[in-house]
């Protein structure tokens, strides 16, 4: 496994996944199918999560091929700018999808058409379009068999020219992030505030399921989850901005990649909690009532993984340059 391999392994998921998600979402609207709508929102949220390590793996892939003959740095930069814009829309789509899923679980009656579904529809269409461009510009870098691998940028249609103007220049963006140490300090400060929001709310829910402070009923405690999502969102934004500012620093760091792995596993943990009946099994628990063993297992793995994320995050600085391939 090396960075180009990892990038290729990951990068098809957000492109194809959002397209499939959009298809299911459209069918769910036409057929007024509640389950299908839920499935499509889950896919958008999952793709938004997976898009993050996909984006991060691009820097290492670039490092591996940029010195090869026939590889144009300009084309790589165009692909990176396209990926940044697509990631922005992907994450907004994912956040709105989570909001929609939250509303679905809060009310048992069928959800009516509302603004958040319209927003998901519009944003997911834009995301699919931008993802297609990310895929195309990425393919242009090194696929001679489809006529790519040209040395300079040739913009095709009027639409792609217009979108290209909206895409940030990766180099300038990185400079913007690191120009002021106060801006950097501010982002890191917010990253810690997000950590507290997340671990405070999720941690107490997990501890209650494990039997701590049993007098608290679970369903009311679960209402704190949007605060955890806000904390995660804050850390996703500050984390991605920090990465774009110092991508070389983070890319060749084992602690950073293990942290990403732990966050992906947490995605699975959340899915196991909400989609395999665990949440239903604990939702009704009142004061003094004990959670079933599988719910305790999910709570314990959540706590373990979040503390692993903190641990790996703290060790990023001391594990810089521990990955030496292609540097």
């Amino acid at each position, binding site marked *: 496994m090396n960075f180009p391999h990892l990038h290729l392994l990951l990068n098809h998921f957000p492109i194809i996944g959002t397209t499939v998600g959009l298809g299911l979402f459209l069918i769910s609207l036409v057929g007024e199918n509640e389950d299908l709508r839920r499935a499509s929102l889950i896919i958008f949220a999952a793709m938004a999560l997976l898009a993050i390590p996909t984006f991060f793996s691009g820097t290492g892939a670039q490092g591996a091929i940029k010195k090869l003959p026939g590889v144009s740095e300009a084309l790589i930069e165009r692909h990176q700018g396209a990926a940044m814009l697509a990631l922005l829309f992907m994450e907004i789509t994912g956040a709105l999808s989570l909001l929609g899923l939250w509303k679905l679980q809060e009310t048992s009656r069928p959800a009516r058409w509302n603004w958040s579904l319209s927003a998901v529809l519009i944003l997911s269409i834009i995301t699919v379009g931008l993802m297609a461009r990310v895929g195309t510009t990425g393919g242009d870098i090194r696929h001679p068999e489809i006529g790519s691998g040209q040395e300079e940028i040739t913009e095709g249609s009027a639409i792609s020219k217009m979108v290209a103007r909206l895409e940030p220049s990766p180099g300038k963006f990185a400079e913007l992030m690191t120009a002021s140490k106060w801006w950097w*300090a501010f982002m890191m400060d917010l990253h810690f505030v997000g950590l507290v929001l997340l671990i405070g709310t999720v941690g107490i829910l997990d501890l209650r399921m494990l039997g701590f402070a049993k*007098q608290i009923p679970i369903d009311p405690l679960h209402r704190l989850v949007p605060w955890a999502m806000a904390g995660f969102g804050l850390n996703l934004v500050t984390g991605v901005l920090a990465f774009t500012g110092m991508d070389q620093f983070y890319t060749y760091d084992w602690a950073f990649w293990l942290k990403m792995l732990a966050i992906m596993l947490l995605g699975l943990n959340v899915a196991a909690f909400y989609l395999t009946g665990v949440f239903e099994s604990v939702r009704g628990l009142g004061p003094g009532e004990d959670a079933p063993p599988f719910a305790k297992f999910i709570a314990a793995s959540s706590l373990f993984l979040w503390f692993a994320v903190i641990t790996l995050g703290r060790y990023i600085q001391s594990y810089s340059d521990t990955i030496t391939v292609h540097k």
Partner: protein
Amino acid sequence: MAPPLFLQTIEDTGFSTWLRESESPFAFYFILLFHTFGLALLVGANMVVDLRLLGVARAVPLAPLKRLFSIMWIGFAMNAVTGVLLVIAYPTKSLTNPDFYVKLTVIGFALWVMWRIRSEVFEDANLNEAEMMARGAALAKWSLILWFGAITAGRLLAYTYKYLTFPS
């Protein structure tokens, strides 16, 4: 003005040097890690109590949240110990930085507010929920502001120091 000499004395001890310079993952970064764990426990639990006192997740009964104070004290104990160790590792860096004293002062006030929330809101068994919230709302606001201030002042220590080690 040169920093006081006792800072150099601390820095020259074997323990301080080991904490600061050891390549072992169980030296400086390990202490820093537990300082972060303590922060997560202390401020995380405080924040949940504060939010509830301010009316978030009203369906959560207030009285059993008293249990969270034990988490806060565990977090505080961890950070008091690891904090002292971090100062031993970099005495000149921390003790010559005015921000360090700002941080300690803010934490002092935050702990005072935390203690008042416990004694004035949670210790009085005669209070109903509305009375607890009425008594706790202003304290909860201050608690959130002060802990945010403590985190910010702590983060800034990494960006505002004048000397990393004793100037030679």
